[in-house]
Structures are given as C-alpha cells and as structure tokens.
C-alpha cells in the first residue's frame, strides 16, 4: 500500500492506496465522494472528471498515488453549502440532465472553462466539453445551460 497525502476540495486527506488504485476509486470508495462516476474507465466519457491542480482530468486515468501533494477538486466542492453554483442552477432550469450520470463531470469541466474564459462561444463550449459524453440529453440543453450560466456570472461581476 502507498501512503498518499492530498487535498480534496480544500480538505487535507491521508490515504492508504493500492498502487494500481485510480484516483476515481480512491475518491469514491475511500473518501465516499461518489459524485465522480465511472462511465467507461478508459478516458472516453468524462463522467469521472475532477480537477487535478486546476485542470480537468479523467480521474479513471490518474493513479491515486499521483495525487500526492496535489489539489483535487470534485463536483462536491462546487456548491457553497446549500447555495448552488450558477451552473448547477442553470442545469436544473434548462433540464440539462436526465439520468445525471454525466452531470458531475460536465459541471466540473464547464466550471473550469468559465474560470479560464468567462465569455465562451457556443463552439468553444462544444469543443471544451467534447470529452464529456451524455447518452440522454442530446447535448443542446447542456450547452445552453452552460452559456446561460456564463452570461449570468458575467452580469454578476
């Protein structure tokens, strides 16, 4: 077993992990942060997206051991207590989810986009989220929710 010290959503954690264990499994099974989902396990679907040192990654393709000394952020850290993030509210308003398996990964990836680019074009949003697959919604509502959240966040600042 490998000892891993890492920070998840701002909280320091010490974990004992199998060397082959993925960050996704460590988050879900050891820290009970079950927001990130396993869709494919091979980097294709993005359901497992978390931030590793500020960048969205597929946590199914990261070893837990690689999180040593790094900052991890998951969908659980997006809301401020009971206050939903604008992206979360807009996803509900626009009905941008059905089964919801893809939603945590999309929220994490979309938030990272808006932090880099507060005013993305529709094309930019579509390309940024090309690695987040959704089997239910047909994507249009997701893209509209992200663009709407972006415009609300711009007005608020």
């Amino acid at each position: 077993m490998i000892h891993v010290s890492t920070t998840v959503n701002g909280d320091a954690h010490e974990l004992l992990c199998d060397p082959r264990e993925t960050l996704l499994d460590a988050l879900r099974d050891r820290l009970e942060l079950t927001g990130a989902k396993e869709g494919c396990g091979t980097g294709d679907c993005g359901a497992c997206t978390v931030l590793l040192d500020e960048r969205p990654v597929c946590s199914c393709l990261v070893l837990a051991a690689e999180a040593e000394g790094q900052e991890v952020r998951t969908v659980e850290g997006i809301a401020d207590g009971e206050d939903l993030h604008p992206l979360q509210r807009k996803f509900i308003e626009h009905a941008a989810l059905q089964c919801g398996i893809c939603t945590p990964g999309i929220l994490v990836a979309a938030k990272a986009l808006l932090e880099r680019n507060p005013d993305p074009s529709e094309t930019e949003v579509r390309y940024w989220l090309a690695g987040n697959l959704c089997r239910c919604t047909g994507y249009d509502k997701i893209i509209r929710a992200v663009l709407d959240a972006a415009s609300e966040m711009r007005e608020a600042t």
Partner: protein
Amino acid sequence: MRYHTPSSFEDASAIAAAATGVTRFLAGGTDVLVQLRSDLVTPDDLIDIKHIAGVKDIARHSDGSWRIGAAVSGAELAEHEALIAEWPGVVEALELIGSTQIQARCTLVGNLCNGSPAADSVPAMIAAGATASVVGPEGTRELPVEDVPTGPGMTSLGPGEVVSAVNLPPRGECGGDAYLRFIPRTEMDIAVVGAGVSLSREGDTIIAARVALGAVAPTVVLVEEAGAALVGSTLDDTALAALAGAAEAACRPISDKRGTVEFRTQVAGVLARRAAKIAYDRAGA
C-alpha cells in the same frame, strides 16, 4: 505492481535497468492507465517521471532551439505563445489528442514512446527535425525522433533507457510547420492518416522541407522524397503534384474499419499537399 517516484532520470534509468518484469514509465498515463485498466499491460514496475526536476520546463536556448521536458502536457504546450509562434505544427498536433481532460495529461514523449503508428504528434515532431534526449545505463544520447518507433507498440529504446526531453532545432528565419489528420468525426478519434510538413523559405522559394506521415505504415515515416519534391519550388502545382506522388508512394497502410489501403493512400497525398500549403503560408508570415 511497484510504483516508483525517482527524483532524477539517472535513478529512473537505474530502476528500469534493474527491473526484471514488465516495466513502464508514467508520464501522463493516458496510454499506460488505459492498458493497465483493460488488463492489456500490468507493469511490475511503474516509474513515474513527474517528480524529476525540470520535467515540466519549456526552454528556448540562445541559438533558438527548444527543449521540452518529458512531462509537459498538451494543455501546457498550447499555452506557450512563444513556442506556438515558432512551431505551430508541433503544438497543434499534440493539441489534437483526445479531449480537454486528456490534454491536461498527454505528453509528446508518451505519444512517441507508446509507439502507435497513428500517434498524432509524431509526424509533426519528425517533420520539425526533433530529437529525443535519452538517459540510459551507458549515459545519455540524443536520437532523431524518426529513429525511436520500430513497429506498432515498439521502440528502439534499450533496457533502462528513458526519454528526458524532446528537442526542436532553431526555427530560423521564414520557417513554418503544420500538421493535419483525417478522422471521420471532428474530435476524439484515431487518425486514419496524419501528415506533418515543416519547411523554410527564402523569398518565395522553399530551401528546405521535411514531410512525415502517420497511420500509413507500421511506424510513422519520414518521407524524404516528399520533402525533396518541394525544395527549390515556390509550391507551384508541379511541386504539389510531386509531393503528393511521393507521399502516396511511401504508404504501406492496412485496411481496417477506419479506411482501406486505397483511401489511406489517396488521403496521404491530399493531406501532405494541404499541410504544405499551411506551412508555406506560415513561413511567409
């Protein structure tokens, strides 16, 4: 599986040289982890190179050459404006890999050492005249990128050899490069054909050119005749036709669900021409 985090390439090399079982280096892990999780390759020793000082550095030397550390990700490369200004083709090739999430992790060195004939950044690196710095039990060496892959999934790296960086030559005045690939969709797919071109101009005349093709042979190939077809020309129709002919002649592709031999061969000629035009315009800009 033993997971190692050496703090120097010499240590990484020593661990690999002493290992007796299946050994892998871990850069961004976007190939290693997929192979691990699908039980294709379970390393006995996995050597993470990301704790080595300097692996994330992108440095431009005073002679204009570049050194890109082995763990620099696609996202980091794509944010480096000075590098993009000189080697846009290399940057756009790595940027084509996967999604936003894969970009945060994938590296030039991992793409090269995974040994895929369809690896997107490899034709661009070969066209650019890039070299790989290698650290091994016998010391260090620098070898041309085209000499690294030897077949699907295979490289010329010996036991205990690890790549520490990719080097790009000085771009010089009036140089440009470009990489194009054909895939059936717009994102997230494996190249059916890839073409990298790098050239230098003196006025309107091309004075040096290198062309490399991906996914049309067991390894990415440098097509010297294709580069030679451009030299001395102003990229007129005759030169473009000679370029396409040389590119097609170099193709030894397979037929699979992504494309037939005939299709891949024709597309190789088309993409080589298009990439050459982009490189030519960039060289004049």
